[in-house]
């Protein structure tokens, strides 16, 4: 028996380390492929807005701006919607409504990003073109699509945070004569603040990392956008678009793009961990890690709510 126990323990430990090894291997690989180019062409070239890799100009600033702009737009759309949805789910809905809403949101998380992109092309782009002008393919289109795509992440983690607010807070507030809405707005939301913020940060990670849907709707022009209706290119789109035929320094420049992206995601995830850690030990870490690992193209499984009372 003891031998079997130890055997299982060893196997599990090896499996756990293999995931860390994968991360290390990825880090090593993109650094090895991309870092030499940074030294070769210099940061000045790399951080300019002039991307013309077949002519030796590797500036990614326009893409950096593009990624930030699209992500900010996605947050402007996804955060209010997501938090509202979490409040309804966690605080205001009777059980039967929850039974309908939760699976619906889970389905939203399971739709492949190429389907979102296709919806963008046939619905969002023509709508923008006809009602707002411009070519349709634009930062705004990317923000709308991503805003919907980050909803499940934000909802799941915000909901988790709301559920973790001790029941006694609510009871205390209600006993003081506060209405339901006052209790939610003045007591529950502030208490769940850091958990909700962590959800938002993870949503940012998902938005920055999303590729397929963004390539399909943002137009991918390498320029610093001046209006939400201008086409733009994100860092991920740059990789996805050009990796197929890139050779030599062009390829290295794409890996250098990946380094920037990778650093951004690492910082965001660390930030989310910190913010969430502040809320105390009773927070559920399982949902955090699950949502973190889904930072890129895969889909977060909405976390089960762990309520400690």
């Amino acid at each position: 028996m003891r031998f079997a126990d130890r055997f299982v323990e060893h196997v599990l430990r090896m499996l756990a380390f293999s995931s860390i090894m994968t991360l290390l291997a990825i880090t090593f690989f993109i650094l090895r492929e991309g870092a030499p180019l940074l030294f070769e062409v210099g940061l000045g070239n790399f951080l300019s807005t002039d991307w013309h890799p077949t002519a030796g100009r590797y500036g990614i600033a326009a893409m950096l701006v593009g990624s930030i702009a699209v992500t900010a737009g996605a947050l402007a759309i996804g955060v209010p919607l997501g938090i509202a949805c979490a409040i309804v789910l966690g605080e205001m809905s009777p059980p039967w409504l929850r039974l309908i809403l939760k699976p619906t949101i889970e389905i939203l998380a399971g739709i492949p990003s190429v389907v979102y992109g296709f919806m963008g092309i046939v619905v969002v782009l023509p709508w923008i073109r006809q009602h707002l002008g411009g070519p349709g393919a634009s930062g705004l289109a990317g923000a709308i699509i991503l805003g919907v795509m980050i909803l499940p992440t934000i909802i799941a983690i915000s909901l988790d945070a709301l559920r973790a607010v001790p029941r006694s807070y609510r009871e205390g507030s209600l006993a003081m004569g506060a209405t339901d809405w006052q209790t939610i707005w003045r007591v529950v939301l502030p208490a769940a603040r850091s958990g909700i913020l962590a959800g938002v940060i993870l949503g940012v990670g998902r938005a920055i990392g999303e590729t397929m849907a963004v390539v399909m709707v943002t137009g991918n022009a390498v320029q610093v956008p001046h209006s939400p209706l201008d086409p733009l290119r994100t860092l991920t789109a740059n990789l996805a678009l050009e990796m197929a035929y890139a050779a030599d320094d062009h390829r290295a420049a794409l890996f250098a793009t990946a380094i920037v992206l990778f650093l951004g995601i690492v910082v965001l995830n660390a930030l989310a961990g910190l913010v969430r850690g502040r809320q105390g030990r009773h927070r559920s870490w399982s949902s955090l890690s699950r949502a973190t690992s889904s930072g890129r193209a895969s889909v977060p499984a909405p976390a089960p709510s762990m309520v400690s009372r």
Partner: protein
Amino acid sequence: MAEKWASAYERQHPAVAVTVQGGGSTAGVRAALSGAAQIGLSSRALTMDESGQLRSVVVARDGIALVVHPTNPLSGLARRQVERIYAGAFRSWSSVGGHDLRVTAITREEGSGTRAAFESLVMSKSQIAKSTLVQDSSGAVRQMVSNDPAAIGYISIGLVDHSVKALRLDGAAPTEVAIDAGQYPLVRPFLFLLPPAKSQQSADFVAWVTGPQGRALARSEGLLPPSEEASRALR
């Protein structure tokens, strides 16, 4: 395409193994120069330096068609007009005789062979404007054009269908006849590159690829085989 040829050839000649490796035109030229490959593949013409050391054989051709939305009233453009559209000089289709609609030009990504051919054949004096939309395949360009009445893009002729309208260029329609007659200018060759001391095996393979079966296969992939005269001259 080369993979299709290779596997069909291997099926008919079980004793011969043809290995195909990707990596782009420059890699193909380099592999042929270094001898790492018996045959190099390239979809760009050789530089002067390279052509001294390698012999190139056209094994297929890909016409590039300019496509617009089916509702666009234009039927053709001059090459200079196309250049100015992609350079961002025209804001409206009315500048080239169309409706008063803003022009949305769509190009391929850097590194694409189709883009390189388009740039060298059309953009002789100017560069593609930064505001030009970019898509990473002919299919994606066609999709965008078919959804936007103001769009123009360029795609492989084999992918033109009823969802878009192919434009005449300098008066010539993008057809095989016009291409063979040298009237339609946007064509890029797919080349096999051979070192001077080529092996019998690779010569056999080249002959098969440019022969009836290789040609039929190219056609089924939406490419044009080399012109009849060129193939006859080879044999």
